[in-house]
């Protein structure tokens, strides 16, 4: 948290703000000098310096401490408006004032350094953990189809004469399935790295929501799924200015996910509505839903639900979230009281109603 403040202000500004703050506090004390003794003023100034030490770098704090000591001496210690000090007590006080202020500055600085190192260590540990998860997930999700391809081609090359026609066809089918799976994984990885690099910028153009939904569903149905998909889109829904590719990928990933992780006899509903220039897309199923403790994690990168079958990279939903947010939208997941999960996407966008276009 301290880091934030330090990064926010440049060194020059830290000097300026530190000195200004001390002057301000001193000014206020001076205005009330009839009511408070000058020794109390020392404590108030010391407090100010301590506060500054919490947020600023060591050098600006030391400089502020030194200047505050001078101000205290010049304006508050009798005789006023000189740097002279009348009593021995005040000499000792002034000396101690400066020492305490310096110790304060140094100690706070040290604590902050330790905190920083601890934070870096933790970050590094997290990175290593994430890296391991990525490696595990990737090596499994990429190697499985590769193994299928190598195995099948080996069989076809070396045992061709022993294979029946049926077996041969099955092996070829396996190769085809595995290659498509590989292709999809690579696409997911590319999308993710494009998102991570911040390179991705939505390319907004007028989108026909029904067309996009049906295109995504068509791609999923080509994979051969057994669940029923119901589509409910108001025919009067306007065109939205959004990134077509991103929106289609979001819908594809959500519906594909629902198809992967629900039973064959389940139903998937896709609903698109327009509320005052906000596009709302709901994708819900009547499967088992998500476990409560998992709802917050499902959008995390490489997060896989416990005890789920393989087939994904754990990237699908984080891409959904990334794309939705890149278009300025939000996504929300909840379990339905009737069982099943519901994803709700809201994206505010420019709209165009068909009626406004003349048809001649």
């Amino acid at each position: 948290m301290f880091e934030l403040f330090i990064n926010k202000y440049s060194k020059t500004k830290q000097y300026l703000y530190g000195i200004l703050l001390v002057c301000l506090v001193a000014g206020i004390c001076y205005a009330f000098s009839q009511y408070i003794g000058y020794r109390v003023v020392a404590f108030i100034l010391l407090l100010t310096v301590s506060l500054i030490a919490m947020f600023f770098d060591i050098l600006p704090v030391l400089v502020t401490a030194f200047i505050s000591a001078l101000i205290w001496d010049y304006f508050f210690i009798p005789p006023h408006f000189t740097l002279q000090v009348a009593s021995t007590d005040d000499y000792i006080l002034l000396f101690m004032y400066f020492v305490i202020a310096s110790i304060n500055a140094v100690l706070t600085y040290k604590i902050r350094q330790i905190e920083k190192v601890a934070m870096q260590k933790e970050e590094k540990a997290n990175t290593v953990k994430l890296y391991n998860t990525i490696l595990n997930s990737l090596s499994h999700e990429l190697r499985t189809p590769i193994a299928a391809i190598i195995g099948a081609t080996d069989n076809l090359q070396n045992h061709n004469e022993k294979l029946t026609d049926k077996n041969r066809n099955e092996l070829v089918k396996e190769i085809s399935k595995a290659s498509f799976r590989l292709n999809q994984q690579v696409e997911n990885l590319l999308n993710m790295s494009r998102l991570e690099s911040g390179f991705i910028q939505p390319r907004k153009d007028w989108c026909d929501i029904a067309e996009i939904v049906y295109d995504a569903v068509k791609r999923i149905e080509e994979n051969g799924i057994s669940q029923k998909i119901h589509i409910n889109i108001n025919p009067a829904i306007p065109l939205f200015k959004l990134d077509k590719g991103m929106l289609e990928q979001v819908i594809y990933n959500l519906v594909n996910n629902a198809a992967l992780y629900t039973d064959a006899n389940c139903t998937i509903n896709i609903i698109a509505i327009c509320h005052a220039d906000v596009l709302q897309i709901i994708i819900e199923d009547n499967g088992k839903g998500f476990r409560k403790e998992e709802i917050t994690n499902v959008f995390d990168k490489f997060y896989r639900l416990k005890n789920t079958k393989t087939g994904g990279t754990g990237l699908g939903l984080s891409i959904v979230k990334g794309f939705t947010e890149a278009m300025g939208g939000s996504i929300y997941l909840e379990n339905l009281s009737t069982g099943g999960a519901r994803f709700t996407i809201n994206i505010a966008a420019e709209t165009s109603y068909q009626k406004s276009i003349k048809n001649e």
Partner: protein
Amino acid sequence: MSNPAEILIIDDEVQMRKLLEITLQSNDYAVSQATNAKEGIIMAANHPPDMIILDLGLPDEDGHSVLQKLREWYTNPVIILSVQSSEEDIIKALDTGANDYLTKPFRTGELLARMRSALRGALTDVNNPVLTYNDLQIDLSARTVKKKNELIKLTATEYALLATFAKNEGKVLTHHYLLREVWGPGFINQSQYLRVFIAQLRKKIEDDPNRPEYFITESGIGYRFVLKE
């Protein structure tokens, strides 16, 4: 066909060339191959093929500039091969004069269909004003459209759009191309017009407008008018 159509493949990937060679030869095309841009241009100039399949990612020269050089004199179809997720590349190539495109990985069936359609476009002219396909009939001289022998009422813009598609059957048409052809050069950024009119044509002509079979969306690029065989 008495003489097999001659196809020149320009691609640096040996695996890709092998795949294309087997696919094309087994479908009775004559195949020649070039491994880089320089070789490809020389081969095309010495013995102009009936079609060129050009990979956009060549080692010695940018695919777009190869295409530009070819188009200075070569008028037969060119089909572009490109890697996925480079819509801008594809649009640029189509604008430079490529007839069609395929993104790797592609299905060979898809490649053959595109090739047939591009070669057909190169061989036959639209001298015959009546185009009949399955249950759809478009009469370009009488400006009428019939489906299952019933007249379909189209507005002038809808007809202009359909006619543009019909004249380019099987070919991908970019958003800009369609907007320029149908609405005029000032409208190339008014993509909402296109969305609305495509939706209307689908409503009038498709059996199920939500699962179009005639007006196919080419995501991020444009539309393709495909006729059921």
